[in-house]
């Protein structure tokens, strides 16, 4: 017990092991901080900024910042909630997210966050960028319209030699996450399923199946994302 440290989130006294990332330490204390690019067991990268909190007047990503003794964290304030909501809205307008036509609808983490933050309409104009759908691999469809560059697939979907199935292609506004052509040919069903599961949106879909879970039984139909984090 000696290495437990004390800190505060929105004025609430919390305790955690030293060195834990804030988002995990908060969860241990029953406080939900939203995440999108972050995944348990994967080195955090602070890509999406959804988990931003204010520490000492500065915005920090709580998935990459370790908690320290006496730290005072602001997470649930109106300003930070709005900041998170604006990130969700930006993600919605910068891609083509047609929820009614998406297989992942109901189990999509981006959509679930929009529900949690009650996004009725994004405050930004829709971009409607022209993106492509790559269905050339035998196992999966990679829909670039929905990709949010979270890098989860790159970090987690690897073969037995540790090589990633997914890679970045191009730079700047042409950036894409694509399936490696050669490796895609030998991808097995279990890996394809895991890739679809790990994708927070509907950008990676397993071929020859779809809409398997009926409306009402999907992951976020009844309970908001983060409902599992309670004391």
């Amino acid at each position, binding site marked *: 017990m000696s290495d437990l440290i004390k800190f505060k989130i929105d004025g609430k006294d919390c305790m955690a092991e030293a060195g834990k990332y804030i988002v995990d330490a908060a969860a241990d204390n029953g406080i939900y901080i939203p995440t999108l690019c972050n995944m348990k067991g994967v080195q955090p990268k602070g890509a999406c900024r959804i988990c931003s909190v204010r520490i000492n007047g500065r915005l920090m990503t709580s998935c990459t910042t370790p908690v320290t003794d006496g730290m005072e964290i602001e997470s649930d304030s109106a300003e930070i909630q709005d900041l998170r909501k604006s990130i969700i809205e930006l993600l919605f307008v910068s891609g083509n997210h047609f*929820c*009614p036509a998406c297989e992942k609808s109901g189990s999509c983490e981006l*959509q679930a966050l929009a*529900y949690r933050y009650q996004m009725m*309409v994004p405050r930004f104009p*829709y971009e409607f*960028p022209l993106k492509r759908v790559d269905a050339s691999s035998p196992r999966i469809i990679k829909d670039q319209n929905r990709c949010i560059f979270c890098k989860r697939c790159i970090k987690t979907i690897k073969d037995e030699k540790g090589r990633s199935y997914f890679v970045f292609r191009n730079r700047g506004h042409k950036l894409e996450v694509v399936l490696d052509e050669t490796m895609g040919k030998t991808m097995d069903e279990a890996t394809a399923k895991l890739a679809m599961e790990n994708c927070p949106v509907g950008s990676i879909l397993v071929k020859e199946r779809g809409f398997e879970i009926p409306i009402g039984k999907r992951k976020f139909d*009844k309970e908001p994302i983060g409902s599992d984090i309670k004391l």
Partner: protein
Amino acid sequence: MSKPVIATTSLAGCFGCHMSLLDIDERILTLIELVEFNKSPIDDIKTFTKPVDIGLIEGGCCNSENVEVLKSFRKNCKILVSLGECAIMGGLPALRNGIPIEECLHEAYIGGPTVQLNKDGIMPNDDELPMLLDKVYPCHEIVKIDYFLPGCPPRADLIWDALVALVTGDPMKLPYEVVKFD
């Protein structure tokens, strides 16, 4: 006091949102007690005959007629509500956004695999037909929209709660289960 007046329209939509409005079941009898309908496909009144309090817009704007109707709704309604995903973000019709209009028309009338009877390769060109816009626009990018009810279609309970809130002026409850994008 006279009853609040409601108008509805379907622009580039599928009438699914209107079906969802009818899906309030027996509450429709209460609704008729509470409000009066003006221009709407529900009562088949084609033009505005009086000032309207609440206008419900289904569908986005895909052609010049949609824009005209939407602007007339803005002119005649005190409050405009975007009803459903198509009104809010273009919806399925907006899947054509990003594809040049000529390519879309070619696929629909000349090159598509199901086109068989159009041997002369004619594209619709009658002056009576509304012009297609370069893309499908969300309603709030054309006129000012006051409220948004997402869903495909918005749940009947969401439409009901919103109408009751607007008519009575009471704050609206937004239970988790009713605000969905699909």
